[in-house]
Protein backbone atom coordinates (compact mmCIF):
# COMPACT_ATOMS: atom_id res chain seq x y z
CA UNK A 1 0.00 0.00 0.00
CA UNK A 2 2.90 2.29 0.70
CA UNK A 3 4.91 1.64 -2.50
CA UNK A 4 2.35 3.04 -5.01
CA UNK A 5 1.92 6.14 -2.84
CA UNK A 6 5.66 6.72 -2.83
CA UNK A 7 5.95 6.20 -6.57
CA UNK A 8 3.14 8.65 -7.09
CA UNK A 9 4.85 11.17 -4.83
CA UNK A 10 8.06 10.95 -6.85
CA UNK A 11 6.14 11.33 -10.10
CA UNK A 12 4.29 14.34 -8.72
CA UNK A 13 7.55 15.98 -7.70
CA UNK A 14 9.04 15.42 -11.15
CA UNK A 15 5.92 16.77 -12.79
CA UNK A 16 5.94 19.88 -10.69
CA UNK A 17 9.43 20.65 -11.90
CA UNK A 18 8.68 20.06 -15.57
CA UNK A 19 5.37 21.88 -15.50
CA UNK A 20 2.11 20.20 -16.44
CA UNK A 21 2.56 18.28 -19.63
CA UNK A 22 -0.27 18.10 -22.13
CA UNK A 23 -1.75 14.65 -22.66
CA UNK A 24 -3.03 13.19 -25.89
CA UNK A 25 -6.80 13.45 -26.13
CA UNK A 26 -7.03 9.87 -27.27
CA UNK A 27 -5.55 8.52 -24.06
CA UNK A 28 -7.99 10.37 -21.83
CA UNK A 29 -11.23 9.43 -23.57
CA UNK A 30 -14.09 8.63 -21.18
CA UNK A 31 -11.98 9.64 -18.19
CA UNK A 32 -12.61 12.52 -15.83
CA UNK A 33 -10.73 15.67 -16.88
CA UNK A 34 -10.27 18.79 -14.76
CA UNK A 35 -10.26 22.47 -15.77
CA UNK A 36 -6.81 23.64 -16.78
CA UNK A 37 -5.69 20.46 -18.49
CA UNK A 38 -4.40 20.72 -22.02
CA UNK A 39 -5.08 18.02 -24.57
CA UNK A 40 -3.17 17.23 -27.72
CA UNK A 41 -5.02 16.33 -30.88
CA UNK A 42 -4.04 13.16 -32.73
CA UNK A 43 -2.11 14.89 -35.48
CA UNK A 44 0.15 16.63 -33.00
CA UNK A 45 1.23 13.59 -31.06
CA UNK A 46 3.92 12.75 -33.61
CA UNK A 47 5.32 16.26 -33.44
CA UNK A 48 5.89 16.07 -29.69
CA UNK A 49 9.06 14.11 -29.03
CA UNK A 50 9.52 11.95 -25.96
CA UNK A 51 11.18 14.83 -24.16
CA UNK A 52 8.14 17.06 -24.63
CA UNK A 53 8.79 20.60 -23.63
CA UNK A 54 7.28 21.98 -26.83
CA UNK A 55 10.17 21.09 -29.13
CA UNK A 56 9.18 20.40 -32.68
CA UNK A 57 11.41 18.83 -35.34
CA UNK A 58 12.06 21.15 -38.25
CA UNK A 59 9.98 20.03 -41.21
CA UNK A 60 10.89 20.69 -44.82
CA UNK A 61 7.39 19.90 -46.04
CA UNK A 62 5.54 21.87 -43.39
CA UNK A 63 2.80 22.85 -45.77
CA UNK A 64 1.97 19.28 -46.70
CA UNK A 65 0.94 18.26 -43.19
CA UNK A 66 -2.64 17.11 -43.37
CA UNK A 67 -5.08 19.33 -41.52
CA UNK A 68 -7.83 17.61 -39.64
CA UNK A 69 -10.75 19.76 -38.61
CA UNK A 70 -11.84 18.86 -35.11
CA UNK A 71 -14.96 20.35 -33.58
CA UNK A 72 -14.53 21.69 -30.05
CA UNK A 73 -17.69 20.97 -28.08
CA UNK A 74 -18.97 22.13 -24.68
CA UNK A 75 -16.36 22.27 -21.95
CA UNK A 76 -13.39 22.69 -24.31
CA UNK A 77 -11.73 25.75 -25.76
CA UNK A 78 -9.07 26.15 -28.37
CA UNK A 79 -5.77 27.27 -26.89
CA UNK A 80 -3.18 27.70 -29.58
CA UNK A 81 -3.31 24.38 -31.37
CA UNK A 82 -4.34 22.43 -28.28
CA UNK A 83 -7.60 21.98 -26.45
CA UNK A 84 -7.99 23.54 -23.01
CA UNK A 85 -10.46 21.87 -20.66
CA UNK A 86 -12.70 24.44 -18.95
CA UNK A 87 -15.25 22.19 -17.19
CA UNK A 88 -14.92 19.07 -15.10
CA UNK A 89 -16.42 15.92 -16.58
CA UNK A 90 -15.80 12.92 -18.80
CA UNK A 91 -14.10 13.52 -22.14
CA UNK A 92 -16.08 12.11 -25.06
CA UNK A 93 -15.36 11.79 -28.75
CA UNK A 94 -17.56 11.09 -31.72
CA UNK A 95 -16.13 9.97 -35.02
CA UNK A 96 -17.26 11.92 -38.06
CA UNK A 97 -20.15 10.17 -39.78
CA UNK A 98 -19.02 10.82 -43.29
CA UNK A 99 -16.54 12.92 -45.15
CA UNK A 100 -13.72 14.90 -43.63
CA UNK A 101 -13.11 16.14 -40.16
CA UNK A 102 -11.62 14.62 -37.06
CA UNK A 103 -14.90 14.33 -35.24
CA UNK A 104 -16.19 16.12 -32.18
CA UNK A 105 -14.63 16.27 -28.72
CA UNK A 106 -16.64 17.42 -25.73
CA UNK A 107 -16.80 17.18 -21.96
CA UNK A 108 -19.83 15.49 -20.41
CA UNK A 109 -20.38 17.51 -17.27
CA UNK A 110 -23.17 17.47 -14.71
CA UNK A 111 -24.57 20.88 -14.01
CA UNK A 112 -27.88 22.43 -13.14
CA UNK A 113 -27.45 25.81 -14.78
CA UNK A 114 -28.57 26.12 -18.40
CA UNK A 115 -26.79 28.34 -20.93
CA UNK A 116 -28.85 28.96 -24.10
CA UNK A 117 -27.53 27.24 -27.21
CA UNK A 118 -28.83 27.78 -30.73
CA UNK A 119 -31.05 24.96 -31.91
CA UNK A 120 -31.90 23.60 -28.47
CA UNK A 121 -35.53 22.76 -27.74
CA UNK A 122 -36.52 24.19 -24.36
CA UNK A 123 -39.55 24.68 -22.14
CA UNK A 124 -40.07 28.29 -21.14
CA UNK A 125 -42.52 30.15 -18.92
CA UNK A 126 -44.06 33.35 -20.31
CA UNK A 127 -43.30 36.16 -17.87
CA UNK A 128 -44.36 39.27 -19.75
CA UNK A 129 -46.17 40.46 -22.84
CA UNK A 130 -44.86 43.69 -24.26
CA UNK A 131 -46.18 44.86 -27.60
CA UNK A 132 -45.38 42.22 -30.21
CA UNK A 133 -42.97 40.19 -28.11
CA UNK A 134 -43.35 37.73 -25.25
CA UNK A 135 -40.63 37.49 -22.62
CA UNK A 136 -40.02 33.85 -21.78
CA UNK A 137 -38.01 32.61 -18.81
CA UNK A 138 -35.84 29.71 -19.96
CA UNK A 139 -33.59 29.35 -16.93
CA UNK A 140 -30.68 31.27 -18.41
CA UNK A 141 -29.23 34.57 -17.28
CA UNK A 142 -31.77 36.62 -19.23
CA UNK A 143 -35.29 35.94 -20.53
CA UNK A 144 -35.65 34.97 -24.19
CA UNK A 145 -37.84 36.93 -26.55
CA UNK A 146 -40.57 35.22 -28.58
CA UNK A 147 -42.40 37.07 -31.32
CA UNK A 148 -46.15 36.50 -31.62
CA UNK A 149 -45.71 35.76 -35.32
CA UNK A 150 -43.46 32.79 -34.55
CA UNK A 151 -46.36 30.37 -34.14
CA UNK A 152 -47.92 28.15 -36.78
CA UNK A 153 -50.68 29.96 -38.63
CA UNK A 154 -50.15 33.23 -36.81
CA UNK A 155 -50.75 36.49 -38.67
CA UNK A 156 -51.13 40.08 -37.56
CA UNK A 157 -54.87 39.57 -37.32
CA UNK A 158 -54.83 36.01 -36.05
CA UNK A 159 -52.81 36.28 -32.85
CA UNK A 160 -51.91 33.16 -30.84
CA UNK A 161 -53.66 32.66 -27.53
CA UNK A 162 -50.72 33.00 -25.14
CA UNK A 163 -51.08 34.38 -21.62
CA UNK A 164 -48.58 35.26 -18.95
CA UNK A 165 -47.75 32.10 -17.03
CA UNK A 166 -48.21 29.70 -19.96
CA UNK A 167 -45.66 27.02 -20.76
CA UNK A 168 -44.04 27.22 -24.19
CA UNK A 169 -42.02 24.56 -25.99
CA UNK A 170 -39.80 26.16 -28.60
CA UNK A 171 -36.30 26.29 -30.02
CA UNK A 172 -33.62 28.96 -30.07
CA UNK A 173 -32.80 30.75 -33.31
CA UNK A 174 -30.41 33.24 -31.71
CA UNK A 175 -28.41 32.22 -28.67
CA UNK A 176 -24.95 33.58 -28.00
CA UNK A 177 -23.25 35.33 -25.16
CA UNK A 178 -23.50 38.80 -26.68
CA UNK A 179 -27.19 39.04 -27.52
CA UNK A 180 -30.51 38.39 -25.87
CA UNK A 181 -31.68 34.87 -26.81
CA UNK A 182 -34.58 34.60 -29.26
CA UNK A 183 -36.83 31.60 -29.64
CA UNK A 184 -39.55 30.50 -32.02
CA UNK A 185 -42.29 27.88 -32.03
CA UNK A 186 -42.05 26.93 -35.70
CA UNK A 187 -39.37 25.09 -37.60
CA UNK A 188 -37.68 26.28 -40.77
CA UNK A 189 -40.62 25.10 -42.91
CA UNK A 190 -43.17 27.07 -40.92
CA UNK A 191 -44.77 24.04 -39.23
CA UNK A 192 -45.21 23.71 -35.48
CA UNK A 193 -43.75 20.21 -35.26
CA UNK A 194 -44.84 19.73 -31.65
CA UNK A 195 -43.80 23.20 -30.49
CA UNK A 196 -46.08 25.87 -29.12
CA UNK A 197 -48.13 26.31 -25.97
CA UNK A 198 -48.20 23.27 -23.67
CA UNK A 199 -51.54 22.31 -22.13
CA UNK A 200 -52.73 23.67 -18.84
CA UNK A 201 -52.68 20.58 -16.65
CA UNK A 202 -49.69 18.48 -15.78
CA UNK A 203 -46.60 19.21 -13.73
CA UNK A 204 -43.38 21.06 -14.59
CA UNK A 205 -40.28 20.18 -12.60
CA UNK A 206 -36.56 20.72 -12.87
CA UNK A 207 -33.75 18.17 -13.14
CA UNK A 208 -30.07 18.39 -13.98
CA UNK A 209 -28.95 18.83 -17.58
CA UNK A 210 -27.07 15.54 -17.53
CA UNK A 211 -30.23 13.61 -16.73
CA UNK A 212 -32.11 15.20 -19.62
CA UNK A 213 -29.37 14.21 -22.04
CA UNK A 214 -29.40 10.68 -20.64
CA UNK A 215 -33.18 10.40 -21.03
CA UNK A 216 -33.09 11.75 -24.57
CA UNK A 217 -30.39 9.33 -25.69
CA UNK A 218 -31.70 7.03 -28.42
CA UNK A 219 -31.24 3.83 -26.43
CA UNK A 220 -32.68 4.96 -23.11
CA UNK A 221 -34.74 2.29 -21.37
CA UNK A 222 -36.16 4.54 -18.68
CA UNK A 223 -38.69 6.21 -20.94
CA UNK A 224 -39.86 2.91 -22.40
CA UNK A 225 -40.37 1.48 -18.93
CA UNK A 226 -42.20 4.58 -17.78
CA UNK A 227 -44.44 4.38 -20.82
CA UNK A 228 -45.40 0.83 -19.96
CA UNK A 229 -46.35 1.87 -16.45
CA UNK A 230 -49.00 4.54 -17.12
CA UNK A 231 -50.21 6.31 -20.27
CA UNK A 232 -48.63 9.74 -20.14
CA UNK A 233 -47.64 12.85 -22.05
CA UNK A 234 -44.13 14.09 -21.48
CA UNK A 235 -42.08 16.98 -22.82
CA UNK A 236 -38.32 17.33 -22.25
CA UNK A 237 -36.65 20.73 -22.37
CA UNK A 238 -32.88 20.87 -22.80
CA UNK A 239 -32.85 23.53 -20.10
CA UNK A 240 -33.46 20.91 -17.44
CA UNK A 241 -37.26 21.17 -17.35
CA UNK A 242 -39.63 18.27 -17.78
CA UNK A 243 -43.42 18.54 -18.15
CA UNK A 244 -45.43 15.46 -17.35
CA UNK A 245 -49.14 14.69 -17.50
CA UNK A 246 -50.90 11.44 -16.61
CA UNK A 247 -54.55 10.55 -16.07
CA UNK A 248 -54.70 11.40 -12.35
CA UNK A 249 -52.73 13.79 -10.19
CA UNK A 250 -51.36 10.93 -8.11
CA UNK A 251 -49.91 9.18 -11.17
CA UNK A 252 -48.40 12.47 -12.33
CA UNK A 253 -46.66 12.95 -9.00
CA UNK A 254 -45.39 9.38 -8.97
CA UNK A 255 -43.90 9.83 -12.44
CA UNK A 256 -42.30 13.12 -11.45
CA UNK A 257 -40.70 11.52 -8.40
CA UNK A 258 -39.41 8.57 -10.41
CA UNK A 259 -37.81 10.79 -13.04
CA UNK A 260 -36.18 12.99 -10.43
CA UNK A 261 -34.83 9.97 -8.57
CA UNK A 262 -33.54 8.28 -11.73
CA UNK A 263 -30.39 10.29 -11.51
CA UNK A 264 -29.18 8.61 -8.37
CA UNK A 265 -30.58 5.12 -8.81
CA UNK A 266 -28.81 2.19 -10.35
CA UNK A 267 -30.54 0.10 -13.01
CA UNK A 268 -31.52 -2.63 -10.55
CA UNK A 269 -33.07 -0.27 -8.03
CA UNK A 270 -35.05 1.33 -10.82
CA UNK A 271 -36.37 -2.01 -12.07
CA UNK A 272 -37.40 -2.91 -8.53
CA UNK A 273 -39.38 0.28 -8.11
CA UNK A 274 -41.08 -0.12 -11.46
CA UNK A 275 -42.11 -3.70 -10.73
CA UNK A 276 -43.47 -2.66 -7.34
CA UNK A 277 -45.51 0.14 -8.91
CA UNK A 278 -46.79 -2.09 -11.69
CA UNK A 279 -48.18 -4.51 -9.11
CA UNK A 280 -50.05 -1.91 -7.07
Amino acid at each position, binding site marked *: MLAPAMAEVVAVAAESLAGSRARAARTVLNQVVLP*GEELLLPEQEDAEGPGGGGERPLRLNAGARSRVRVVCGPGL*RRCGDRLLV*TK*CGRLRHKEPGSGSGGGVYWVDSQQKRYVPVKGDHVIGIVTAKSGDIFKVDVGGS*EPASLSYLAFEGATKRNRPNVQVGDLIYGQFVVANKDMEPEMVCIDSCGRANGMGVIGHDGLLFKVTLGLIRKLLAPDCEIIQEVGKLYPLEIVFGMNGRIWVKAKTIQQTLILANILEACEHMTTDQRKQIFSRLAES
Partner: protein
Amino acid sequence: MEGTMHADAKIRAETGTESGPRGPGCSLRHFACEQNLLSRPDGSASFMQGVAEKSREQLIRNTCEAVVLGALHPRTSITVVLQVISDAGSLLACCLNAACMALVDAGVPMRALFCGVTCTLGADGTLVLDPTAKQEKEARAVLTFALDSVEQKLLMSTTKGLYSDAELQQCLAAAQAASQHVFRFYRESLQRRYSKS
Protein backbone atom coordinates in the same frame (compact mmCIF):
# COMPACT_ATOMS: atom_id res chain seq x y z
CA MET B 1 7.24 9.17 4.96
CA GLU B 2 6.79 10.59 8.49
CA GLY B 3 8.78 13.70 9.35
CA THR B 4 11.13 14.17 6.38
CA MET B 5 13.71 16.81 7.13
CA HIS B 6 14.65 19.51 4.71
CA ALA B 7 18.01 21.21 4.74
CA ASP B 8 16.72 24.60 5.72
CA ALA B 9 13.24 24.24 7.17
CA LYS B 10 11.95 21.94 9.86
CA ILE B 11 8.37 20.90 9.35
CA ARG B 12 6.57 19.43 12.31
CA ALA B 13 4.33 16.47 11.69
CA GLU B 14 0.82 17.08 12.97
CA THR B 15 -0.20 14.86 15.82
CA GLY B 16 -3.48 13.11 15.43
CA THR B 17 -3.81 13.50 11.69
CA GLU B 18 -5.08 10.78 9.41
CA SER B 19 -2.34 8.93 7.60
CA GLY B 20 -3.22 9.67 3.99
CA PRO B 21 -0.69 9.79 1.16
CA ARG B 22 1.73 12.55 2.06
CA GLY B 23 4.16 14.51 -0.11
CA PRO B 24 7.66 15.15 1.16
CA GLY B 25 7.57 17.73 3.89
CA CYS B 26 3.83 18.21 3.70
CA SER B 27 1.58 17.58 6.64
CA LEU B 28 -1.95 18.69 6.02
CA ARG B 29 -4.92 17.60 8.00
CA HIS B 30 -7.55 15.21 6.78
CA PHE B 31 -9.92 16.53 4.11
CA ALA B 32 -13.52 15.74 3.41
CA CYS B 33 -15.58 17.14 0.62
CA GLU B 34 -19.16 16.84 -0.46
CA GLN B 35 -20.69 18.32 -3.59
CA ASN B 36 -24.13 19.23 -4.84
CA LEU B 37 -25.57 19.48 -1.31
CA LEU B 38 -28.12 22.23 -1.76
CA SER B 39 -30.92 21.79 -4.25
CA ARG B 40 -31.74 25.41 -4.96
CA PRO B 41 -28.48 27.04 -6.05
CA ASP B 42 -26.79 26.05 -9.28
CA GLY B 43 -23.83 24.53 -7.53
CA SER B 44 -22.73 23.88 -3.99
CA ALA B 45 -19.90 22.20 -2.15
CA SER B 46 -18.80 21.70 1.43
CA PHE B 47 -15.12 21.44 2.30
CA MET B 48 -14.01 20.44 5.74
CA GLN B 49 -10.39 21.03 6.75
CA GLY B 50 -8.89 20.00 10.11
CA VAL B 51 -10.70 23.51 12.07
CA ALA B 52 -11.77 40.71 8.83
CA GLU B 53 -14.80 40.11 6.65
CA LYS B 54 -14.63 42.54 3.80
CA SER B 55 -10.96 42.04 3.03
CA ARG B 56 -11.38 38.27 3.06
CA GLU B 57 -14.28 38.58 0.64
CA GLN B 58 -12.15 40.75 -1.63
CA LEU B 59 -9.29 38.25 -1.59
CA ILE B 60 -11.54 35.33 -2.51
CA ARG B 61 -13.23 37.41 -5.16
CA ASN B 62 -9.95 38.40 -6.79
CA THR B 63 -8.80 34.80 -6.87
CA CYS B 64 -12.04 33.63 -8.47
CA GLU B 65 -11.95 36.45 -11.02
CA ALA B 66 -8.46 35.48 -12.09
CA VAL B 67 -9.51 31.94 -12.85
CA VAL B 68 -13.11 32.08 -14.09
CA LEU B 69 -13.57 32.67 -17.83
CA GLY B 70 -15.82 35.68 -17.40
CA ALA B 71 -15.65 36.58 -21.08
CA LEU B 72 -18.00 33.67 -21.83
CA HIS B 73 -20.72 35.17 -19.64
CA PRO B 74 -20.97 38.91 -20.21
CA ARG B 75 -23.63 40.89 -18.31
CA THR B 76 -23.91 38.03 -15.83
CA SER B 77 -23.09 38.08 -12.14
CA ILE B 78 -21.69 35.02 -10.40
CA THR B 79 -22.34 35.03 -6.66
CA VAL B 80 -20.36 32.79 -4.34
CA VAL B 81 -21.85 32.38 -0.88
CA LEU B 82 -19.60 30.85 1.78
CA GLN B 83 -21.04 29.75 5.12
CA VAL B 84 -18.59 29.01 7.93
CA ILE B 85 -19.79 25.95 9.78
CA SER B 86 -16.80 25.71 12.09
CA ASP B 87 -13.45 27.46 12.20
CA ALA B 88 -10.52 25.26 13.22
CA GLY B 89 -7.74 27.39 11.73
CA SER B 90 -6.72 28.07 8.10
CA LEU B 91 -10.15 29.55 7.46
CA LEU B 92 -9.22 31.54 4.36
CA ALA B 93 -7.55 28.53 2.73
CA CYS B 94 -10.60 26.40 3.45
CA CYS B 95 -12.87 29.09 1.98
CA LEU B 96 -10.79 29.18 -1.19
CA ASN B 97 -10.97 25.41 -1.53
CA ALA B 98 -14.72 25.42 -1.00
CA ALA B 99 -15.19 28.23 -3.52
CA CYS B 100 -13.21 26.32 -6.13
CA MET B 101 -15.22 23.12 -5.64
CA ALA B 102 -18.48 25.03 -5.76
CA LEU B 103 -17.54 26.73 -9.02
CA VAL B 104 -16.62 23.37 -10.53
CA ASP B 105 -19.90 21.88 -9.29
CA ALA B 106 -21.88 24.71 -10.86
CA GLY B 107 -20.21 24.16 -14.23
CA VAL B 108 -18.72 27.66 -14.45
CA PRO B 109 -15.99 27.58 -17.13
CA MET B 110 -12.57 28.05 -15.56
CA ARG B 111 -9.07 28.17 -16.96
CA ALA B 112 -7.61 26.27 -14.00
CA LEU B 113 -8.44 25.03 -10.53
CA PHE B 114 -7.13 26.85 -7.49
CA CYS B 115 -6.49 26.00 -3.88
CA GLY B 116 -5.54 27.81 -0.70
CA VAL B 117 -2.70 26.88 1.64
CA THR B 118 -1.90 28.54 4.93
CA CYS B 119 1.43 28.37 6.69
CA THR B 120 2.72 29.91 9.88
CA LEU B 121 6.19 30.81 11.06
CA GLY B 122 6.96 30.19 14.72
CA ALA B 123 9.13 32.42 16.86
CA ASP B 124 12.14 30.17 16.18
CA GLY B 125 11.53 30.00 12.42
CA THR B 126 9.72 26.65 12.28
CA LEU B 127 7.31 26.38 9.37
CA VAL B 128 3.94 24.73 9.95
CA LEU B 129 1.50 24.09 7.10
CA ASP B 130 -2.27 24.09 7.62
CA PRO B 131 -2.12 25.36 11.23
CA THR B 132 -4.83 25.00 13.83
CA ALA B 133 -6.40 28.10 15.35
CA LYS B 134 -4.13 27.86 18.38
CA GLN B 135 -1.00 27.65 16.22
CA GLU B 136 -2.14 30.65 14.20
CA LYS B 137 -2.55 32.73 17.32
CA GLU B 138 0.86 31.83 18.71
CA ALA B 139 2.74 32.23 15.44
CA ARG B 140 5.03 35.06 14.53
CA ALA B 141 3.62 35.30 11.01
CA VAL B 142 0.68 33.74 9.16
CA LEU B 143 0.85 33.52 5.36
CA THR B 144 -1.97 32.34 3.09
CA PHE B 145 -1.41 31.62 -0.59
CA ALA B 146 -3.78 30.80 -3.42
CA LEU B 147 -2.15 28.67 -6.11
CA ASP B 148 -3.42 27.53 -9.49
CA SER B 149 -3.41 23.96 -10.68
CA VAL B 150 -1.61 24.32 -14.01
CA GLU B 151 1.84 25.44 -12.88
CA GLN B 152 1.29 26.18 -9.18
CA LYS B 153 1.55 29.88 -9.94
CA LEU B 154 0.69 32.32 -7.20
CA LEU B 155 -2.77 33.85 -7.63
CA MET B 156 -3.18 35.60 -4.30
CA SER B 157 -1.19 35.99 -1.12
CA THR B 158 -2.09 37.59 2.16
CA THR B 159 0.29 37.77 5.07
CA LYS B 160 0.18 38.94 8.64
CA GLY B 161 3.20 39.33 10.89
CA LEU B 162 6.97 39.63 10.67
CA TYR B 163 9.07 37.52 8.30
CA SER B 164 12.17 37.84 6.13
CA ASP B 165 12.39 37.61 2.37
CA ALA B 166 14.05 34.19 2.50
CA GLU B 167 11.34 32.89 4.81
CA LEU B 168 8.68 34.09 2.38
CA GLN B 169 10.30 32.10 -0.41
CA GLN B 170 10.49 29.02 1.83
CA CYS B 171 6.82 29.30 2.75
CA LEU B 172 5.87 29.73 -0.87
CA ALA B 173 7.84 26.65 -1.90
CA ALA B 174 6.31 24.60 0.90
CA ALA B 175 2.84 25.83 -0.08
CA GLN B 176 3.44 24.87 -3.71
CA ALA B 177 4.42 21.36 -2.66
CA ALA B 178 1.38 21.11 -0.40
CA SER B 179 -0.94 22.30 -3.15
CA GLN B 180 -0.16 19.16 -5.14
CA HIS B 181 -1.71 17.19 -2.31
CA VAL B 182 -4.85 19.34 -2.43
CA PHE B 183 -5.18 19.02 -6.20
CA ARG B 184 -4.82 15.29 -5.97
CA PHE B 185 -7.63 15.28 -3.45
CA TYR B 186 -9.76 17.39 -5.83
CA ARG B 187 -9.15 14.90 -8.61
CA GLU B 188 -10.07 11.88 -6.47
CA SER B 189 -13.15 13.62 -5.13
CA LEU B 190 -14.38 14.54 -8.62
CA GLN B 191 -13.61 11.11 -10.00
CA ARG B 192 -15.66 9.58 -7.23
CA ARG B 193 -18.53 11.89 -8.09
CA TYR B 194 -18.48 11.03 -11.77
CA SER B 195 -18.06 7.33 -11.14
CA LYS B 196 -21.52 7.17 -9.61
CA SER B 197 -23.29 8.12 -12.83
